[in-house]
């Protein structure tokens, strides 16, 4: 009788476990696959680093957590099937803009330019306004019934470099040329503005 009871218990437990697995795999909403875990990781890195950027008192801490924010955003780009844009983000933002910001921080940091305590007078209205803005935008995003295209469910492994290259040369060639002119103007303007003063004016 004891062996029968034990066999029954084993049989019943395997039956229940198999039913549980069947139930978990069937209800797709409850299964947490790798995509969701990676998304939550990058989301927490991005939002946490952005909070440190905004609320930190030390500007060098803010600049370095902006680095982590850019890395988190690049991870989110990869999750959105934008691999070329993720690498472009790392090259341009981290390698260009963040280095420029760090130059600016280091060149203009004064011992005397400390965030004065009287700034808290503006902090409460700013917090209220920004909380209202976040609530408004987030509420609109949450409650709108967005049009979701048919291929939204699958995770695509197609790289985007070829499509972006073709679109840049054929469809968006005018924007491409204008963007190159804008970059040229920005380079010349910034280099001319930030040069050192000459003592005598004969060039």
């Amino acid at each position, binding site marked *: 009788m004891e062996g029968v009871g034990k066999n029954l218990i084993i049989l019943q437990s395997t039956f229940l476990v198999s039913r549980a697995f069947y139930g978990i795999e069937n209800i*797709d909403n*409850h299964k*947490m696959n790798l*995509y*969701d875990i990676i998304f939550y990781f990058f*989301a927490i890195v991005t*939002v946490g680093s*952005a909070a440190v*950027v*905004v609320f930190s008192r030390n*500007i060098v801490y*803010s*600049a370095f957590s*902006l680095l982590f924010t850019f890395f988190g*955003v690049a991870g*989110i780009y990869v999750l*959105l*099937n*934008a691999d070329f*844009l993720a690498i472009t983000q790392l090259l*341009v*933002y981290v390698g260009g*803009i963040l280095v*420029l*910001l760090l130059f*600016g*921080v280091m*060149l*203009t940091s*004064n011992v*005397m*330019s400390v*965030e004065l305590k009287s*700034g808290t007078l*503006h*902090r409460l209205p*700013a917090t209220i*306004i*920004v909380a209202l*803005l*976040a609530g408004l*935008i*987030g509420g609109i*995003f949450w409650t709108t019934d*967005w*049009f*979701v*295209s048919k291929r*939204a469910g699958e995770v695509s492994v197609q790289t*985007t470099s070829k499509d*972006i290259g073709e*679109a840049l040369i054929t469809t968006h060639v005018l924007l491409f040329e204008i*963007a190159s002119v*804008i*970059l040229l103007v*920005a380079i010349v*303007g*910034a280099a001319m*503005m*930030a040069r050192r003063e000459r003592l005598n004016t004969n060039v």
Partner: protein
Amino acid sequence: MNITLTHFLLISAILFSLGVYAVITRRNAIMVLMGIELILNSANINFLAFSRYGGLNIEGQMAAIFVIILAAAEAAVALAIVLNIYKRFNTVNIDEISILKD
């Protein structure tokens, strides 16, 4: 829970609000520039989320590329301006740079 379009849009909204808070509240000019970069990144996430989940397919990524290009140009010019301000006023506190005001 499946990750849908709304998750990415909410991240974009949170980053946008944090960027706007940095632009409004902080008084160092370079902190304002960091807030502007946060706002541009949030707009990029929004573009790419609609490129994948909406119907944009590659146009969203083109828009995001042009946003990155313009953000780089704007950051360069803005930092040149900030360096000039520092050279002239010896501070980058934007409350003290007000000689145009009566």
